[in-house]
């Protein structure tokens, strides 16, 4: 093996050296090319063969296979079977979508019960009226409005309820939006500093 790092010959020499196995002695680049392709044409000294010929020979097996075949017409039985498979596939997709919706609705119903069980009386009143509630920081200095949603549904608000900006932080798992509201409420009430560090601040 040639030590490439310490090899001081010119690039061309290196090229010839690499190929000595294929083209002994006074090989030229062309000679090497011919040597490599000796299987592909009759003589590696021949000059009649063009590059295109080599290309065609290399790819002969693929070339043959790629020759377009006329499409066969399906029999009525095959067409019927194809249609049945397509119908079954569509039915399965519809069933799966309906099952997803049913599970999401059940999850939402349970999430609403859990959220309501953990809202304070005033928050519960707000939620029943407007599907949102206010969270006041533990030191009483900051107010937040938590609306139904997944992203940017928490708003920092002033005393009058005017939005100052939105905040975006939510569970890593895609839980129900109502569960998301509960998580945001718990975080804001019990670890506001952490919530504010994690949340991205949005528009006013």
């Amino acid at each position, binding site marked *: 093996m040639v030590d490439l790092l310490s090899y001081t010959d010119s690039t061309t020499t290196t090229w010839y050296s690499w190929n000595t196995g294929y083209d002994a002695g006074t090989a030229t680049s062309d000679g090497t090319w011919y040597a490599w392709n000796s299987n592909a044409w009759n003589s590696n000294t021949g000059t009649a063969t063009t590059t295109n010929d080599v290309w065609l020979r290399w790819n002969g097996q693929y070339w043959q296979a790629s020759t377009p075949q006329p499409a066969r017409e399906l029999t009525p039985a095959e067409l019927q079977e194809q249609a049945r498979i397509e119908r079954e596939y569509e039915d399965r997709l519809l069933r799966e979508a309906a099952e997803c919706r049913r599970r999401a609705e059940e999850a939402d119903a349970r999430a609403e019960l859990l959220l309501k069980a953990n809202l304070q009386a005033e928050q519960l009143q707000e939620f029943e009226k407007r599907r949102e509630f206010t969270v006041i920081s533990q030191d009483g200095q900051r107010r937040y409005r938590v609306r139904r949603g997944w992203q940017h549904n928490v708003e920092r608000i002033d005393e009058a309820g005017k939005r100052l900006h939105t905040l975006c932080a939510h569970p890593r798992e895609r839980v129900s939006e109502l569960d998301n509201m509960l*998580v945001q409420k718990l975080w804001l009430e019990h670890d506001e500093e952490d919530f504010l560090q994690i949340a991205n601040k949005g528009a006013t």
Partner: protein
Amino acid sequence: MGEMSVLVGPSPSKSFQELFPPGTVVTPGDTKIMWDSTKPDEVEAAKSTFDKLVAKGYIAFRAEGRSGEKGEKIKTWDPNAERLILVPKIQGGLG
């Protein structure tokens, strides 16, 4: 009686379901685990699930009062807690 509500994502994996006491039906939304504080085996099963979920990155809140007037974030099992809520960690959303 103690109650632990665990918020579960839309497709709980088999390995996630195995964190819960045997026989618990783990479904998307919240899954509840109840225990009788006078029955050590029930308490132990609930504690074991709590520990496994916290080790997986879940965050635990202890709720006090009938409607969440009080509470705190906790890191270790509290045998006296009546209501616990375990939630997945939060992350920053779109900026």
